[in-house]
């Protein structure tokens, strides 16, 4: 446990001092502040626009931190051979994988929390901000749930990004594969529908369906689709999302550890 925490701790420190990370954080903040300008185009719903745009920015910059973080930390560590000095220590390789993952996730969470705080500040800077949220739900109960769901999505994405960073031959391929998984994860039902239409009744349809199930299903974290409707889902939705996210990331980490154990340097 001490080794995992040591790797995680120095992963966070390294990431926070990484110029790329700081640039991402800076741009994230800039986009949130710039959303004030876009909000001005929607009089009467200014804060609501800032709210939606901010959540989108939060997720996109969380994703950028996760993907670039995994590539810059792990893939470059392998390419530069820095990893030799870790793997020749008396630690199992799965410890390295889990430590890196936890450090990476913590850095992503830090980005998202910082951006969420700025996002709230931008919204409440409008003296009548609460009027836009008099739609039958409480901002303070919904907003943390929305941010948490985005974080769960990043938790899964970080595990995928780490997997591809450990085994991809280049930064570009790791970025592309992770990006493809992330996009496909948002279109699970649409993909299933298209597979059914295109391959209905054919044996290959079952195979393609099985392969499609390997992809993440981010519908589990899509609280944004429901929060504004009456009787929006409660703890059961949250519980299912946590179980799915932890299980999916766990499977990817186990797979990463298993393959990494056999990797030669």
């Amino acid at each position, binding site marked *: 446990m*001490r080794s995992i925490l*040591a790797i995680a701790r120095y992963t966070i*420190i390294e990431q926070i001092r990484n110029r790329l990370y700081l640039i991402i954080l800076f741009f994230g903040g800039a986009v949130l502040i710039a959303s004030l300008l876009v909000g001005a185009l929607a009089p009467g719903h200014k804060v609501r626009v800032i709210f939606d745009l901010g959540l989108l920015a939060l997720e996109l910059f969380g994703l950028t931190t996760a993907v670039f973080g995994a590539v810059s930390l792990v893939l470059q560590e392998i390419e530069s051979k820095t990893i*030799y*000095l870790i*793997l020749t*220590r*008396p*630690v199992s390789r799965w410890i390295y994988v889990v430590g890196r993952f936890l450090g990476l996730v913590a850095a992503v969470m830090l980005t998202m929390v910082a951006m969420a705080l700025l996002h709230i500040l931008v919204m409440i800077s409008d003296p009548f901000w609460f009027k836009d949220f008099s739609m039958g739900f409480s901002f303070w109960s919904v907003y943390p749930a929305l941010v948490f769901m985005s974080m769960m999505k990043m938790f899964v994405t970080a595990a995928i990004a780490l997997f591809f960073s450990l085994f991809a031959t280049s930064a570009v391929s790791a970025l592309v594969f992770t990006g493809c998984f992330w996009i496909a994860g948002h279109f699970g039902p649409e993909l299933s529908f298209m597979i059914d239409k295109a391959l209905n009744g054919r044996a290959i349809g079952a195979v393609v369906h099985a392969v499609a199930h390997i992809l993440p299903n981010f519908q589990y974290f899509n609280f944004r689709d429901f929060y504004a409707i009456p009787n929006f889902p409660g703890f059961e939705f949250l519980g299912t999302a946590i179980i799915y996210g932890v299980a999916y990331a766990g499977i990817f980490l186990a797979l990463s550890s298993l393959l990494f154990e056999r990797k030669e340097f």
Partner: protein
Amino acid sequence: MAEVVLSAKGLTKTYRRSHLGRTTFSRGVKDISFEVNRGEVFGLLGLNGSGKTTTIKLILGLLFPTSGEISIYGQRVPNREAQRKIGYLPEVPYFYRNLNPTEVLMLYGSLSGMDSKTLPDRVQEVLKIVRMEHASQKPMREFSKGMLQRIGLAQTILHDPDILIFDEPVTGLDPLGIRQTRQLMADLNGQGKTLFFSSHSISELERLAHRVAIIIDGGLARVLLQADWKGKEGRLEELFIETLEASGAASQGAR
């Protein structure tokens, strides 16, 4: 009888590469056997690409042998207990650019299972040994190659390992760096540590090694004893060239 701390038996590594459905095999090392005794300085000498680094990587568990085995204190590697007794300095040590030497050494110390109470003092102690205490808080992206090599030495000795493995320890260093590294290696051996190092610098091996294994084309061609070259200037080089010529590798190396 001297205690064997490191042994290789019939060590063979063949690299297998697949590309577009075509699989190719290339030789790493073949059927290498040797034993290293406690307190000994054992050198590996060979041309570039002869298999020195492959042998070291096999000992460290970074590569897995195709056949044969390696034991450290009688325990077959890869083995966590065996790894605890090893300190390793790569040819070009790379570190985390955004961390400083204190942080890097704290990380490696934790991973080596060192006591968290005594670790900070030990970190400062090794930084003093390698004369880097003045830069202990400086990010390593600002370091020169010589400075990185010194931090490399610091992490090698940090956990007080019994066996020290150096891969080309003086390659690329300036004369002062070479002298300090050489002195540190001699001091460590004086403390009873076992040193295993590869080099294509004959003068380094001549000065430090008790035995030298010549590797040619991945095979162990010959093991020389210190008595074979000591007091005879240029003798080790002659023996190396003789061995190369006998194997026909000298002409390949010249190509």
